[in-house]
């Protein structure tokens, strides 16, 4: 690798001049070590972004807005501290309800046949629970015990939306084409979540090689899903 890790980090952070950035992107296409380093950093950034994204979408608590909007309510910090212990704000109940629904629709389907893959005229496409997860599940908001975990979502060079996933028997990358998810990469999945991490490293490298630009952040992922993964 001819680029040190500070340069790779600066590349991910958009801090490089165009010329150097283009050189890195070009070199990554033929240098697996560099591609892996880029994928590592992209994955960290995507993970952090996804982790904190839900906070921005929450309605800020009334006590904070109250400090800034017209009819000010006097709220002393001490009182608030005492009051908030052990209390769920409505937003929390909303989140709990939402994850229960998601969990019920995606996570708990032991009775479903394991037909996650179908053959469409010689092309491998996702079906069943996998297709449903790729269609609906958001990386930023998936139940811990989901049967299929979504990793990165991104656009590839053909402009398709692609998503990496890991499930019980299969891991891979699916790209949305027509109304279906064409499976561009498939790896054997791991039976238990604890073993899944090994596959995700390979997938992250593949994803980095396929992706045009940065992975979708949580907001973009949600927007793309809401539009049915088409433009």
């Amino acid at each position, binding site marked *: 690798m001819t680029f040190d*890790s*500070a340069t790779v*980090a*600066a590349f991910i*952070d*958009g*801090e490089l001049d165009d010329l150097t950035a283009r050189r890195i992107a070009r070199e990554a296409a033929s240098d697996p070590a560099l591609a892996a380093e880029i994928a*590592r*950093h992209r*994955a*960290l*950034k*995507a*993970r*952090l*972004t996804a*982790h*904190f994204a839900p*906070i*921005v*979408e*929450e309605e*800020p*608590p009334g*006590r*904070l*807005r109250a*400090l*800034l*909007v017209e009819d000010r309510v006097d*709220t002393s*910090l001490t009182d*608030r*501290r005492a009051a*908030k212990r052990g209390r769920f704000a409505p937003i929390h109940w909303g989140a709990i309800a939402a994850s229960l629904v998601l969990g019920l629709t995606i996570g708990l389907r032991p009775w479903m046949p394991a037909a996650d893959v179908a053959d469409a005229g010689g092309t491998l496409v996702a079906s069943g629970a996998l297709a449903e997860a790729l269609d609906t599940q958001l990386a930023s908001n998936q139940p*811990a015990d989901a049967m299929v975990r979504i*990793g990165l979502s991104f656009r590839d060079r053909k402009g398709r939306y692609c998503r990496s996933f890991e499930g019980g028997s299969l891991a891979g990358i699916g790209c949305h084409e027509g109304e279906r998810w064409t499976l561009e990469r498939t790896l054997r999945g791991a039976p238990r979540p604890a073993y899944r*991490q090994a596959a*995700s*490293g390979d*997938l*992250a490298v593949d994803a980095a090689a396929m992706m045009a630009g940065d992975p979708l952040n949580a907001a973009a992922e949600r927007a793309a899903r809401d539009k049915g993964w088409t433009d």
Partner: protein
Amino acid sequence: MRFEEQLVELLPRLRRFARGLAGSAGDADDLCQAAIERALKSRDQWQDGTRLDSWMYRITRNLWIDERRAAGRRGVHTPIDDAVTQIAGDGAAEVEAGALRDDVDGALARLPDEQREVVMLVLVEGYAYREAAAILEVPIGTVTSRLARGRETLIHLLGEAA
């Protein structure tokens, strides 16, 4: 736009930043509240036309640092502080790789304060190195070196694929 309206608009992002610094939702909103109260009190110091977000982030971050130092002086040692003294920086290498792969908050909590704030500003809030340096009032080189250490520790704790 009125000063207060701009702050309302900034609030969701500020809460995210505070959550990353403070860890828990309750502490983060307390920090936001203190920052807003401080901003309203010292609004004369903000120069119209300069970026309100950077100014608010600086106030928030400084209040948080003050609180951490005060807690340190009072001898309040949260589990987070213990974890930092044990495994922050080079010591992180001794913790099993991927030990916190499902726990982003836990991994962030193990970063020393000065790395955590840079990670939040650049990787989560999306500030340029130069802007982060201005908010933290440190040289750019300090930002990049703290960021590099923070990144390596997080990748290590969360596992290769982060």
